[in-house]
């Protein structure tokens, strides 16, 4: 099996301002940890540079006027009123110079991953800088300017006529990708996230099932705060095979936002690194069974820049590329970064099972999550299997 990591330090220019939580440092840390663990020179593994997405590729998922505005604002600086119209110039998603160029590169990197997977050059490809799932057709939102996932999905739809299953387990609802394909029955979106009652963007409830021809092809599993690994992995392991077998995709796109970790400052789900290993393992098993193993993967959210992101995405990459990552983080990596880190860096790649205190109302949370899963299965599976269409 061949695997490709899409990487070029040029993507580090996707940077809003020095104190912004969406900090590209995390990408540099993640790739340097993969390298240090020996995960970039294994057999069948390659590191492939991205190319920028073309305007035509962006226009498949973004309004041309929006793309023109992003170009103009990135060049000329923020005219606040104009920027607000497009969801830019906010505290979350400020205008920055060269915004169009670097976001096109991030989009092109995910498209590059899709190219490699669809051509068979690689079975799995991972764009660690991608995962900008909040960007809408004509609106930036939640740190996301262009939607690289949607651009790559649209590319696979149009260039290869592929049926695409999109899976998103970032702690926030994947509202941008869902919205762009809400009426498309050839793209199934499945987002698992902290409930919109508690977390931005406030959407992603079970009853958002798609519209028109796409009805039944948008799935959402909103989780209760403090869900923890066991419940999360259990739900995913039950739901994914059923959905994938009913939909029969040609390829899976996996968004690996790692902000559901218990150390993440923005969310409340309390997962550990085990979630990332298990989710990737389950996804790859299902992909092997239903779509020749093809997985296009991206990063996503993740705001515990030093202590979580490098470890989570190293584990994601190891799982995708079928490598076993050693548990000890090499001393040279710790020495290289500890001076810059405001926090003590963990010495192990995987969190110890008892590293964090258990949640007092675990049983209640598990029961709530199971109820949500049943409600989703009851509503979505008959539609997906064609039982809801009167035959």
């Amino acid at each position: 099996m061949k695997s490709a990591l899409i990487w070029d330090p040029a993507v580090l220019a996707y940077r809003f301002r020095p104190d912004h939580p969406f900090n590209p440092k995390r990408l540099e840390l993640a790739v340097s940890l993969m390298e240090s663990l020996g995960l970039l020179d294994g057999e069948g593994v390659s590191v492939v540079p991205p190319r920028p997405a073309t305007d035509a590729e962006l226009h498949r998922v973004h309004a041309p006027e929006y793309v023109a505005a992003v170009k103009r604002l990135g060049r000329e600086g923020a005219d606040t009123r104009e920027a607000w119209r497009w969801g830019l110039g906010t505290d979350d998603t400020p205008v920055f110079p060269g915004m169009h160029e670097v976001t096109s590169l991030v989009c092109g990197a995910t498209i590059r991953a899709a190219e490699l997977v669809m051509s068979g050059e690689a079975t799995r490809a991972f764009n660690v800088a991608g995962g900008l799932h909040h960007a809408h057709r004509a609106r930036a939102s939640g740190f996301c300017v262009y939607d690289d996932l949607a651009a790559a999905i649209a590319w696979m739809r149009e260039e290869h006529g592929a049926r695409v299953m999109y899976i998103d387990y970032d702690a926030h609802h994947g509202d941008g990708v869902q919205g762009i394909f809400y009426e498309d029955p050839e793209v199934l979106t499945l987002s698992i996230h902290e409930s919109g009652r508690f977390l931005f963007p406030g959407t992603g409830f079970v009853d958002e099932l798609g519209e028109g021809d796409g009805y039944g092809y948008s799935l959402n599993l909103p989780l209760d705060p403090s869900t923890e690994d066991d419940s999360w992995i259990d739900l995913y392991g039950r739901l994914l095979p059923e959905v994938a077998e009913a939909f029969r995709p040609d390829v899976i796109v996996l968004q690996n936002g790692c902000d559901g970790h218990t150390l993440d400052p923005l969310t409340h789900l309390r997962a550990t690194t085990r979630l990332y290993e298990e989710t990737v393992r389950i996804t790859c098993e299902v992909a092997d069974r239903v779509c020749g193993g093809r997985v296009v993967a991206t990063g996503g959210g993740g705001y515990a820049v030093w202590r979580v992101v490098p470890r989570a995405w190293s584990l994601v990459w190891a799982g995708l590329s079928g490598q076993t990552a050693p548990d000890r983080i090499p001393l040279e990596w710790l020495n290289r970064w500890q001076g810059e880190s405001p926090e003590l860096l963990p010495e192990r790649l995987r969190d110890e099972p008892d590293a964090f205190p258990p949640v007092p109302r675990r049983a209640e949370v598990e029961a709530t999550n199971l109820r949500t899963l049943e409600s989703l299965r009851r509503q979505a599976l008959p539609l997906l299997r064609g039982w809801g269409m009167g035959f």
Partner: protein
Amino acid sequence: MTRDPVTVGPDETLSHALRLTREHRIRHLPVVGGAGTLVGILSDRDIRLAMPSPLTVPDPERVGFLEQTPVSAVMTREVVTCAGSDPIEDAAKLLCRHRIGAVPVTDAAGRLQGILSETDILSAVVQILGGTEPASRLEVALADRPGELARAVAILAERAVNVVSVLVSPVRVQGDKTVIFHVGTIDPREVIGALEEAGFRVGWPSLEEDVRARLAE
């Protein structure tokens, strides 16, 4: 409201009306006479009440009843209506007070312009409550005195956080009103901190259930 709704004439048959409600999946048919004037309203319940019960022995005299009876025989003639310019809260009050599912919207001459249903009101409520744009939900307890809302909003404005929607509930909890903000940010920690520093009680997402309290357990 729905413009150009499906309507029925007073002389058309009940079976025709029944077919319309089924085909269009609607429960109310405005009855329109000459010149587009509203003369009544027919609900699916009115039609069903006119039908024989499936539990009784078929009555030969009633065979073909729906095909022979005109809409005017069972429609409601005293129709509660509203005007297109009425505020949404007034229209909602009408539905509550009269316990009805829809009101026809008419102009000054009594001509039908549209129909407003419970579902239309609910969609409006969803929009007013801020469920349609990306946002984080916060509740803030507001002492019942002038200037408190302005003080809270000023804190959001200082941090360039856009207010997607704001709803002040007059229901008092521990003597305070509750204001629900949907704020357009993925990271509300800073505004929550600033509001609390200014003495406000803040719930994320609600005062009753705060996710931070859950994590601190």
